[in-house]
């Protein structure tokens, strides 16, 4: 860490202490640069560069939180920002009935040195010329164009983000992290002129795909090859039958199952369980079940969901969260039993009170703020559905005729406690006479516990797919965050399917 930033952080904490803070931390965004390039129908429709820097100070005074932030990284600004945070905490304390207490840090989580984390990568995406990126996207665009005249709208995107964020707390934690995320995607839209029906396919997924790492991850996507495949599928979908309706066995592919896991895992965020997120995202059906944690049957024994902030290339991977807690790998659901939650230091004592004993000891290290001006909140890290043993091809062969298989996510909605869901997919297949036939406008919906409890099989790691969702909204004001998700295809029984349109 450069001396001027070290001094800046120390001065922020010094001012906070001097003005009466029981606890203080300063998050300093030294630099965040983003580059976004989009090619649509052969032309560049967007080329945007953005840059951001600033700092935010969070304080505890009389057991109440205060916060203020500014984009002006000037030493002379420190006193003003700290003062505003302190005043906010003092004012808020009027309403405070239960003082905020922070869970202890684990003994092995050392303080007194600057902990450094840097994204491992082979090719810095910011060192790759614009020419190269345009060629990459233009090749994918051309591959889609050549497939079919029915492809009327083609879109290819490339994005890179580098974030350098520094953190210091009054408890002696100091971190310096540089995180690089790179993403690319292609999307093909086909139209049937006679009816006006349109169908779309996306690769690698339909949600602002990102991975943590460099340009090498984009190279591995083989975008042009897959662009041609999705364009062909989009054109085929135009003439495909609608998906059938009824109770079916379904195989859900990772490009849909990862989002289903994402929506489910929102209900495993401690702030939602405790009721802080009602203003935007809602609550969790687990709230009244807190005393049953460790015993409650969440899914079938095939289901093990991990919250993992250490797995390579995940966009939920880092060294330390935004209150200085080290990255971890913890079970949320283990062999079907609800075992854990995504937590922060503040929520641990609140959860234990509701559970009735000290179930949680330390934060799971899930606090992240979108930027320096964002209040950090509990965020999904990488949510991983642990692979099983069955080979995907074997599963496809073994399931009965009438089984549906759902691909890339197209639409999504789930209720405010994460129980009743409805998902639509860009493409689906129905097994007919032992063969998988394409179906369009497919959806599956129902109760989320019923879904996870009816999981019969999770495929092995050979078909495991880790992706980054680039647009998860939470908090107030709204913060958008990248979260990681990984799964293999999985088989569920007795699920309601249907179609729309």
């Amino acid at each position: 860490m450069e001396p001027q930033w070290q001094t800046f952080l120390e001065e922020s904490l010094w001012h906070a202490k001097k003005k009466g803070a029981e606890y203080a931390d300063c998050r300093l965004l030294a630099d965040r640069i983003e580059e976004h390039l989009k090619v649509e129908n052969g032309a560049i429709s967007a080329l945007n560069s953005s840059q951001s820097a600033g700092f935010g100070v969070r304080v505890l005074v009389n057991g109440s939180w205060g916060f203020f932030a500014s984009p002006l990284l000037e030493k002379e600004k420190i006193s003003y920002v700290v003062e505003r945070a302190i005043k906010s905490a003092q004012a808020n304390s009027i309403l405070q009935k239960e003082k905020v207490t922070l869970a202890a840090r684990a003994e092995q989580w050392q303080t007194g040195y600057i902990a450094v984390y840097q994204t491992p990568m082979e090719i810095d995406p910011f060192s790759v010329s614009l020419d190269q990126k345009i060629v990459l996207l233009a090749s994918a665009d051309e591959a889609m164009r050549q497939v079919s005249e029915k492809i009327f709208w083609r879109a290819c995107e490339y994005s890179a983000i580098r974030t350098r964020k520094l953190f210091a707390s009054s408890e002696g934690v100091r971190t310096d992290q540089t995180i690089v995320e790179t993403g690319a995607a292609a999307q093909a839209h086909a139209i049937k002129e006679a009816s006006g029906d349109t169908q779309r396919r996306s690769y690698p997924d339909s949600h602002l795909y990102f991975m943590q790492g460099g340009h090498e991850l984009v190279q591995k996507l083989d975008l042009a090859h897959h662009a041609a495949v999705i364009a062909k599928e989009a054109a085929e979908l135009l003439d495909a039958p609608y998906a059938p309706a009824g109770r079916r066995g379904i195989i859900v592919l990772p490009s849909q199952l990862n989002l289903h896991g994402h929506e489910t895992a929102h209900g495993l965020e401690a702030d939602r369980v405790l009721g802080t997120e009602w203003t935007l995202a809602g609550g969790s059906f687990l709230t009244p079940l807190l005393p049953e944690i460790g015993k409650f049957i969440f899914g079938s024994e095939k289901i093990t969901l991990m919250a993992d902030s250490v797995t390579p290339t995940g966009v939920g991977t880092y060294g330390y969260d935004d209150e200085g807690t080290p990255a971890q790998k913890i079970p949320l659901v283990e062999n079907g039993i609800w075992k854990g939650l995504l937590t922060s230091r503040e929520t641990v004592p609140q959860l234990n009170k509701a559970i009735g004993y000290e179930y949680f000891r330390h934060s799971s290290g899930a606090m992240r703020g979108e930027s320096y001006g964002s209040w950090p909140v509990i965020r999904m890290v990488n949510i991983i559905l642990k692979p099983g043993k069955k080979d995907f091809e074997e599963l496809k062969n073994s399931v009965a005729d009438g089984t549906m298989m759902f691909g890339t996510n197209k639409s999504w909605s789930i209720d405010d406690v994460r129980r009743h869901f409805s998902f639509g997919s860009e493409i689906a297949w129905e097994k007919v006479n032992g063969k998988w036939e394409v179906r369009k406008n497919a959806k599956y919906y129902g109760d989320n516990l019923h879904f996870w409890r009816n999981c019969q099989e999770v495929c092995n790691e050979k078909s495991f797919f880790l992706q980054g969702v680039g647009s998860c909204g939470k908090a107030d004001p709204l913060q958008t965050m990248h979260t990681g998700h990984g799964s293999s295809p999985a088989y569920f029984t007795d699920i309601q399917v249907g179609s729309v349109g």
Partner: protein
Amino acid sequence: MRVLYSPYLWLTMDTQQIAQHILDIATKKKVDFCEVAVFKNEFLLKRLRRGQVDQPPAEESWGVDMAIVKGKRRKSITFDNPLLAERMIEKSLEYLKFLPEHEITLPRQVFEKAQCVANSFDEETALLEDSRLLEVVLQLNSALEAKGLILSGKITAGRGEIYYMNSIGSAQSCVYTLVGSGFFSFDLKDASISAYANTGGSSFESLDLERVSQELISKCELQRQLPKGDIFEKLREGNDLRMDVILEPYFLEPIFDWLGFFGFNGLMVERGESFISKKIGQELLGKNIDISDNPLDSRLQGIAVPFDFEGMPRSQVMLAQKGRIMNALYDSELARRLGKESTGNALPPSQRAEGAAPFNLVVEGGKSSLEEMIDSCQQPTLWITKLHYLGMKHFQTATMTGIAQHGVFLIEKGKVSQCMENVRFEEIIPEALKRVEMMGPSRLVFDPMSAGMPSGTVVPAMKIKDFRFVGSTKRTM
């Protein structure tokens, strides 16, 4: 103008001076066209849980969103610290050299100064005092506690300036204040009993706390008194149900916002992905449905920007009149491609690839009160407070899904008879809008996701025939 580097000079400059300074830098670098939108705002927000402040985000922020054009090449730039301007422009010019050329429409028209939005700024609100927000919370806390209820939600206040300027001479500015809220009440002992209400405007004076307090208390009390039911209790998933509904403005606001962005966005229309694609001029909604985008509507209570992000003054644009689709929304580039006129709905320079969007939807209502709507129900009818997690199932038909929350009641023979479990709808919205039987007065629904721009929606409550439901949730085990 000389280049200014001191942050203190930046701090004393207003958005106009910064926009001008950035334009000067770009002009010196010999760009053919430059446009700059400068945003400056500060806000406080109190996020509440169980009647106390759980999270208090607050910040001062700047945002610059600009584009430069040289020859047939365009690039957009965004940054949040005006000090970065020169470096960002220089770097962007380096990039421009590598871009392939393509057709670009440059604005030719210099627009007149936009008419100010009435009551958009309030000096008292602009003071942004923590205590003022907390007074509101204390008042509601006290009313709710007396009824055995707890308060959650949020209240926020902000002030800001927006300045737009381009190199052919168009310049627009506005200053604003805003106060927005979204309050929830929960029963102390049974969290499945809950209610929601919001209120807001450009000043604290516009808060209707009496209505909010009444809604939060009365809905929870109704839920306490009434037997609980589940409309899908005896129906297996897959059996749809059509029922008459009374939908409150909180439920309808996100539906109309999505209909506005995905349905009337000229880009979606051009691509054939909108329910109005190739259907402009047709009667796609009920004859009693009028929708416009109108920053000057007084019911917005000052929550509007009077110009778009090409500097074009905004005025009322009729989107649907007596059910007939009148217009899609365009910026100048979209308008050129389609042989139309811009409607004054350009997004900021970095977001133009997303099309053109309404900023202030106004859906005209009627005169029926909620009580009159309830009295009129001869068929079993669901009265629903709020909508959660809207999803677009099918763009071309505007088929949407979502789930009801914070107060779902069954009305039988004109009386509220049961408190129902939250239900999921899936409906072709334009078709539903052909079956609107009664409407309440339209009002601002304002529970903002940020203080970055004043934008609100005016919408009524509606009584709709045969709304389609596909399931219900289970909040308890």
